[in-house]
């Protein structure tokens, strides 16, 4: 039974802990970071702070049917960099991609050893599903990983929501948060801190939200709301490439995976006229091997041109293939099989309709996130980042997030060894954070009136959808619309003082919208700054429709000044390590 909300700040209980390495977020990346830290240094106390339950938290809750980056026998790290670079419109951190790629295979092979079934071909090799993809039966992969975390002796705090870092100057010495079950305020002091909270969903209105029960019928885990980004933004960490949003092509009305069909079963994307869209209209971009932003944008352009709806054409599939395909879905998104049943759809007669998703900020697919070095250190001393919250490495996917978790753990251990002292907790900052965290609960008791988190969430999502290039606007935006978005984001941020929470779950929702607002504001600044269109679909500036290499062949980074709240946006140069044309694989 969940605790009651406090009526007064003095009633809030406190939990104070000290640990060596604090990991915020026990998803894939956080779990690998924890395991790597503990097996390298069993003497260290390793603590995971998790807002849900480690067994099913994060992106892997319902499972996966493929690992999209595994370096097969005839491939190399260099080839992966070339491919990923071209997929990302020529823009990624090569140093980070190389160090991630060097650990990819180890992470996947270990997962198999711990219990994850990976399909094999007739030679006993992992069954390929594309150039870098291998097929798995991963419905329980997160449970398997969580068991390993416990076996290594890591400490797991389930149902504790992180709200801000503990700071000593600009140095991160842990984090604060609150328990969604016990209602207590947590102050966790750590030698080193690793953030692994994932990316951000729910910044934009999904197109399925017209139904009362389908608001979260979206691609990304809807419980990843960008808290790790928001904590970094508030503490003045440097962020990169937020403007490279991730929009996915998905099955329409039900967000089912398309790569499963189009890559796994070579089903081409077709428009209403039966034309193969990628081969016919995007041959110059590589046809079926076009970069991912082209694939996301293609069906939307067809709709705009009056050639929608669009489909992946499954009508050539044999009954055996359909059965295997459904098993793939049952491993990754089981409810998609229910969706087909609920439409009474035989996919050998009727193709599967596709459409673009709402946009997300997610460093595991695109490159948005903390600006980090090869040791995964952020620009804040003591803070490391891995997985979807870390920037610079698009296409890392499940394997890359795991690999990056290991790198962050190694970075954190090295940092711990270099520490002369572990810093001082400033009690005035702790008291201020406690007041901030419980404010919506206290307001509910004292005023009994205000704004509930859901109202503010839906206002944000409508604003971003219409003025910052959401799916209803076919991802299009211009300067005037973005400036309008910024004006209303400022109003919304000011209005957060009116938020009310009736229980601990709603208090969590209140902080989710507060965090989303901070992420959305930085995102709009990034979208404004990049006056070109580098990734049509992910980022369409209708007032700057072409790619502009003279001005924007570089990273767009930002930093919010923690004192003034001003967001400074600037560029960092591209550093090429692997030679070759960056726009070709």
């Amino acid at each position, binding site marked *: *039974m969940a605790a009651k909300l406090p009526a007064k700040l003095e009633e809030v209980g406190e939990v104070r802990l000290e640990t060596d390495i604090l990991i915020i977020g026990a998803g894939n990346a956080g779990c690998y970071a924890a395991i790597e830290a503990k097996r390298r240094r069993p003497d260290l106390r390793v603590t995971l702070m998790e807002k849900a339950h480690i067994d099913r938290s994060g992106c892997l809750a319902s499972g996966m049917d493929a690992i999209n980056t595994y370096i097969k026998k005839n491939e190399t790290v260099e080839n992966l960099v070339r491919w990923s670079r071209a997929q990302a419109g020529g823009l990624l951190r090569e140093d980070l991609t190389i160090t991630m790629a060097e650990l990819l295979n180890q992470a996947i092979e270990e997962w198999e050893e711990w219990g*994850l*079934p990976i399909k094999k071909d007739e030679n006993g090799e992992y069954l390929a599903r594309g150039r870098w993809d291998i097929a798995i039966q991963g419905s329980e992969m997160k449970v398997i990983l969580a068991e390993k975390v416990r076996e290594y002796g890591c400490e797991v705090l389930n149902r504790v929501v992180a709200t801000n870092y503990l700071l000593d100057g600009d140095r991160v010495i842990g984090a604060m948060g609150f328990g969604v079950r016990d209602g207590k305020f947590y102050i966790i002091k750590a030698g080193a801190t690793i953030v692994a909270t994932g990316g951000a969903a729910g910044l934009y209105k999904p197109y399925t939200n017209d139904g009362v029960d389908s608001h979260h019928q979206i691609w990304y885990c809807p419980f990843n709301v960008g808290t790790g980004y928001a904590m970094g933004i508030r503490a003045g960490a440097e962020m990169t490439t937020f403007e490279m949003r991730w929009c996915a092509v998905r099955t329409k009305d039900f967000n089912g995976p398309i790569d499963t069909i189009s890559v796994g079963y070579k089903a081409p994307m077709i428009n209403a006229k039966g034309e193969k869209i990628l081969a016919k209209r995007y041959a110059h971009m590589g046809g079926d091997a076009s970069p991912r932003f082209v694939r996301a944008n293609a069906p939307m352009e067809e709709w705009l041109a009056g050639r929608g709806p669009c489909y992946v054409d499954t009508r050539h599939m044999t009954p055996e293939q359909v059965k295997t395909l459904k098993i793939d879905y049952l491993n990754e998104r089981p409810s998609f099989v229910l969706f087909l049943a609920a439409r009474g759809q035989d996919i050998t007669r009727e193709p599967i309709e596709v459409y673009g998703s709402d946009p997300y900020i997610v460093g595991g697919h695109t490159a948005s996130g903390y600006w980090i070095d090869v040791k995964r250190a952020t620009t804040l001393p003591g803070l490391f980042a891995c997985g979807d919250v870390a920037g610079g490495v698009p296409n890392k996917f499940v394997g890359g997030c795991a690999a990056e978790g290991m790198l962050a753990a190694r970075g954190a251990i090295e940092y711990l060894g270099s520490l002369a002292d572990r810093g001082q907790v400033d009690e005035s900052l702790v008291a201020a954070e406690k007041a901030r965290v419980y404010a919506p609960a206290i307001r509910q008791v004292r005023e009994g009136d205000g704004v509930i988190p859901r109202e503010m969430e839906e206002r944000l999502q409508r604003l971003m959808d219409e003025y910052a290039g959401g799916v209803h606007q076919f991802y299009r935006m211009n300067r005037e619309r973005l400036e309008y978005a910024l004006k209303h984001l400022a109003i919304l941020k000011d209005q957060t003082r009116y938020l009310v929470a009736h229980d601990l779950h709603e208090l969590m929702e209140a902080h989710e919208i507060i965090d989303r607002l901070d992420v959305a504001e930085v995102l709009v600044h990034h979208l404004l700054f990049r006056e070109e269109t580098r990734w049509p679909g992910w980022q369409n500036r209708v007032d700057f429709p072409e790619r502009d290499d003279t001005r924007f062949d570089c990273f767009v980074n930002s930093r919010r000044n923690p004192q003034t709240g001003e967001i400074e946006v600037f560029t960092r140069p591209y550093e090429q390590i692997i030679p070759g044309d960056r726009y070709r694989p």
Partner: protein
Amino acid sequence: MPPKVNLQKCDGCRAESEALCVQICPGDLMALDENNGKAYCRSARDCWDCMSCVKACPNGAIETRLPYQLGYYPAKLIPLVGSNKISWTVVDIHGKVERFTFKNRND
């Protein structure tokens, strides 16, 4: 209306410190009704249809239903969770039944 709880089958996991669906839901959406001690979803709109609660329920009391806006009545997808494998039964709106069994963990 994603997780639909069968009140005849749900016993609120009385033997557990916290009902298993309440423990596991990644969105903190499952809770126990204070009046009858049985599970319910506090916000169907916020469900991701990940089916973690359905798989965790020891009484098979939870069924994932799709929002009607997206899929028609009365399709069903029911898992039977084994130690190293899982079996799924699918019934479509025309009554057609399919079954799938596969390994989801190495021995």
